[in-house]
């Protein structure tokens, strides 16, 4: 127990040295890649925004059911079955069918080979469920069908969110999936998330539709408000062009009207349709609708065959830039809601770093002073181990390029306070052993041996708490559990290798000395 081979001494010193180097790479620049790693600062320390977005999938479900109505009608028409009273409400599609055909319809829906209702053999489930209620047949999404739908809309939304954020050009954004209907966005260094929030809050569903000639709400048309006034217009539901046909969009200054506009270029299909619509619809009003609101509804004066055009609508340069950005990055499959937001300004982050460092320095100094007064020469040994422990801890965090948060700093300070426990357990045990045993070497040896179970127990209990926190906690709290957990391992290393090595060296030189500790 008390013997250290030369090889081991070299090994321990080398490891300590390496970690001191790695830990100090946070302060200095090294040309070496291995050494040039840095601890990441959490959003609470460097400032930035954390946004948790939830995808509202209900419009997607409604839209899919809406599309389904046509599919169902056509599908059964071929089989000479008439589907009546198609209605969508509460994310359910209901219809009626003559009694004699009811079973056929049910069978078609429940057929595993049918194209109408895809079957997932892996989950033993259809995409849609169908049930009979009174005279009605009710179709809705099965659990698995809903999961499928959510996952696909999450994938699309993630892509669009990434494009929008990349366009703004914030540094190193972190965009991750959470569950199957959430997206987590971390934006370091951003102190005013207002613009990003408003950009992410827009679905950016752009359509070009004719303004209807009759002013009454009727079949195939809908009443829509204007973006910048309370006026309304009745607009056809038929979509001439949508955002999907856009190749590019840029904010421009219109030299004639001295107005800021968004100019756009269409793809081939879009250009063709636009050309056709503008040639047949001369004199008509073409409404440009974004997310259910009319931006503008200019009168068509000429056929536009070039496949490019302009949107005007009283934009400022900023709003034109944002609209162009939204159009370039594409429409979200469903609206996003911000359900959690945490933003820390850079100056508060810096204040937190300073406060954390001061607390660490003072806490460290107090513990070191107390231990030195209490144990003198062995206090010194404990303190050397404690200092190296701190380097080890910071070194490990650096190697993994872990994220340090304010609670993480608290975890480091707490580790400093609790790390001496193991050495205290050992030294107190040695003191007891020395009461009966005059040989210093034997007393130290059994002191180390007999305190081992208590030390292990003590550290395992703390480790359990740290692990649970790591898996349950979010953001800053995860940082706390990380430093606390890694601190346990570095503490054990520093106690059993560094402090013990120094103790061995000292005791070996003072075998006969009484009252050693």
């Amino acid at each position, binding site marked *: 127990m008390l013997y250290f081979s030369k090889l081991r001494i070299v090994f321990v010193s080398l490891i300590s040295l390496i970690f001191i180097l790695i830990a100090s790479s946070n302060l200095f620049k090294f040309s070496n890649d291995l050494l040039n790693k840095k601890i990441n600062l959490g959003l609470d320390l460097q400032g930035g925004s954390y946004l948790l977005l939830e995808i509202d999938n209900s419009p997607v479900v409604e839209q899919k059911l809406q599309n389904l109505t046509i599919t169902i009608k056509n599908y059964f028409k071929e089989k000479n079955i008439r589907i009546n009273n198609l209605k969508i409400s509460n994310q359910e599609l209901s219809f009626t069918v003559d009694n004699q055909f009811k079973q056929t319809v049910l069978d078609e829906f429940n057929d595993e080979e049918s194209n109408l209702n895809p079957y997932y053999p892996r989950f033993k489930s259809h995409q849609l469920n169908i049930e009979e209620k009174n005279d009605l047949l009710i179709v809705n999404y099965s659990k698995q069908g809903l999961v499928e739908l959510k996952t696909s809309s999450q994938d699309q939304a993630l892509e669009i969110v990434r494009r929008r954020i990349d366009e703004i050009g914030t540094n190193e954004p972190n965009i991750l999936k959470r569950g199957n209907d959430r997206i987590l966005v971390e934006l370091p260094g951003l102190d005013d998330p207002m613009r990003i929030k408003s950009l992410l809050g827009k679905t950016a569903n752009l359509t070009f539709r004719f303004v209807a000639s009759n002013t009454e709400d009727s079949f195939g048309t809908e009443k829509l408000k204007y973006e910048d006034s309370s006026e309304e217009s009745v607009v056809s539901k038929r979509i001439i062009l949508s955002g999907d046909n856009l190749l590019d969009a840029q904010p421009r200054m219109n030299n004639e009207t001295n107005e800021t506009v968004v100019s756009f270029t269409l793809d081939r299909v879009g250009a063709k349709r636009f050309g056709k619509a503008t040639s047949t619809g001369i004199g008509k009003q073409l409404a440009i609708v974004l997310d259910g609101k009319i931006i503008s509804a200019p009168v068509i004066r000429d056929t536009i065959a070039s496949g490019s055009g302009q949107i005007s609508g009283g934009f400022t340069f900023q709003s034109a830039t944002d609209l162009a950005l939204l159009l370039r990055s594409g429409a979200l499959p469903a609206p996003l809601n*911000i359900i959690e937001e945490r933003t820390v300004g850079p100056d508060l982050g810096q204040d937190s770093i300073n406060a954390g460092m001061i607390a660490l320095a003072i806490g460290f100094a107090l513990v070191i002073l107390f231990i030195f007064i209490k144990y003198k020469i062995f206090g010194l040994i404990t303190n050397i181990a404690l200092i190296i422990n701190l380097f080890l801890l910071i070194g490990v965090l650096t190697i993994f390029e872990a994220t340090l948060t304010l609670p993480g700093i608290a975890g480091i300070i707490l580790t400093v306070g609790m790390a001496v426990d193991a050495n205290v*357990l050992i030294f107190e045990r040695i003191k007891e052993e020395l009461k009966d045993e005059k040989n210093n070497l034997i007393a130290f040896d059994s002191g180390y041996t007999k305190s081992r179970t208590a030390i292990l127990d003590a550290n395992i209990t703390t480790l359990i708490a740290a692990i649970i926190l790591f898996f349950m906690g979010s953001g800053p709290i995860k940082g706390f559990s990380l430093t606390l957990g890694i601190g346990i391992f570095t503490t054990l290393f520093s106690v059993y290798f560094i402090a013990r090595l120094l103790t061995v060296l000292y005791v070996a030189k003072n075998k006969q000395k009484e009252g050693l500790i």
Partner: protein
Amino acid sequence: MIAFNKYYNKFNILSVSLVVVSLLLLTFKGLNFGIDFKGGTLIELRASESKINVSSLRDNLNQMNLGDVSVKKFGNETDFLIKFENNDNKNVIEEIKTNLDKSFGNNFNFRRVENVGPKVSEELLKSGIIAISVALILMLIYIWIRFEWQFSLGAILALFHDVIVTLGLFSLLGLEINLSIIAAVLTIVGYSMNDTVVIFDRVRENLRKYSDIKIFELTNISINETLSRTLITSITTLLALLSIFFFGGEILRGFSLAMIFGVIFGTYSSIYIANTVLVRLRVSQKTVLKEDGSN
């Protein structure tokens, strides 16, 4: 040697009353949940104008129909913490900015904005409760593997005592419960267990060593033998925590305070709860030898 065992009964009565009072407080007064668990919006403001004070801010915000607004000083004279409940208005923060700038001039720095929706806060509360429960269960399993059941019971009772009394104190003082308090409670669980286990280790060792000493005496001997370690570790941990409390900034204050309470209760409970359970269950040499034989 200090005769800790002389006060076993008195302190047991004290502990039981503390737990009962805490439970009553938790039931009737409840906890002051922060926005993490209740949902709502929090804004930390720094004013560059020293004339701005809590009441003028409150008057101004009350005109905005935010519901129940709380405005408090936060550390410095010029720092304020504003909290209000969930609000359907998506642009509420922008509107507050505009409103404050209009009334007080452009004198504010929004240092921190947190907004937690009702769904998220519900989930956070649930996962917090799960985390603490899982921690308690894992500790139970661990101690059950390591020790005989009498010891496990003692350690777990001590643990429940520490968690309940710490939360009771938070309820009494009306201190805010947020995510970092959950972290603190979990760390307390680990610390309290650690402290108890060290003494129990010694009790078991002594039980094997002395067959003629009654558990009442034996726990006292064990407590005294480990006392200096208990004190030194508590002191160094408290030194670290106090320095976080005083110098670590306003954000860590609640966390460090909970931990300080927890360390004090944890140290107390390993002496006066964990050990008295052993005495009351009449643990003897047979208890530990039987276990060794069966293994």
